[in-house]
């Protein structure tokens, strides 16, 4: 199982539709400060870590929606799809390709309200179904397989007690 592409639409600083194909093995991402590198990581966490406390560096979910720039008006919703190659059936779904999609939409009527939608291969799903699927494939965002910017500093600054708690969580 591996990630074959990411589709972003109005997610954070990606104020349009973007498709990023991936291969197996080692992919590196580079670019200037503030260009949007960590926002790609946040997009993956947004889908893989629905319950994850690992902040997607946003106060509330609607902060993830593109909020405008010089050349474009703010969007009303954002969508991220992760497409996985599932030919080894690691995800318990009988398909070679599995697409996980998450959408957040600002409610047109009530101001602070928003809607959050989950889809698996286009079929409507739920946060819980995502969670079970991901835990099964061991790619959920709660593990140490996601090392966000600044995590190294946080581990260095931890007390001995906090470090032991890492082992408690794993045990």
């Amino acid at each position, binding site marked *: 199982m591996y990630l074959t592409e990411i589709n972003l639409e109005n997610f954070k600083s990606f104020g349009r539709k973007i498709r*990023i194909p991936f291969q197996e093995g080692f992919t590196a991402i580079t670019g200037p400060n503030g260009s949007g590198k*960590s926002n790609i990581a946040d997009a993956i966490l947004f889908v893989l870590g629905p319950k994850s406390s690992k902040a997607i560096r946003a106060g509330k979910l609607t902060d993830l929606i*593109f909020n405008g720039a010089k050349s474009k008006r703010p969007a009303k919703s954002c969508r991220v799809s992760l497409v996985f190659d599932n030919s080894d059936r690691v995800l318990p779904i009988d398909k070679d390709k599995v697409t996980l999609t998450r959408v957040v939409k600002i409610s047109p009527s009530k101001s602070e309200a928003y809607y959050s939608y989950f889809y698996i291969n286009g079929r409507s799903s739920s946060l819980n179904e995502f969670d079970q699927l991901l835990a099964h494939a061991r*790619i959920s965002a709660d593990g140490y397989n996601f090392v966000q910017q600044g995590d190294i500093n946080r581990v260095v600054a931890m007390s*001995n007690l906090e470090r032991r708690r890492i082992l408690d969580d794993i045990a």
Partner: protein
Amino acid sequence: KKYGLYKVFDAIDRNFQEIFKELSNGGDAHLQLENPDEPFEGGLIIEARPLNKKVLRLESLSGGEKSLTALALIFAIQRFDPSPFYLLDEVDMFLDAVNAEMVARMVAKNSSYAQVLMISLRKVTLTKADQLYGVTLTGGGISDVVGKVNLAEFKTEQPPEEGKS
């Protein structure tokens, strides 16, 4: 419960020793429970001995040595609980070119067992990837991704050859 922790501790400590030895080109490191009899009453101590030095607690290492040791611990946990997908965001920031090279080599090796996505500004890391993307901000303030990154702009970064002219 205690036995569960001992088992996890032993396995991660073994990984940590191996990984630190490889990343630091021959140094030693190990984990220690502050209170081995009652582990939940104490914390976890990290000790590391960079090459040619005495054993030290994590707190008295240099900035770069601390970050390399913390990274070795994270890799040790990853090896204990493997996943098909890893994401690493600028983990090589504090390292000098030699240490950054060692980390990039290990990541490249790991990427034959699992998919790895690594965000980095370091040339020593970018040259080891199978695939490289550049992220840019367009004039209009929107992020875009380009497939063609010119690595020649990055040139090799080495720590100065000490003492050589």
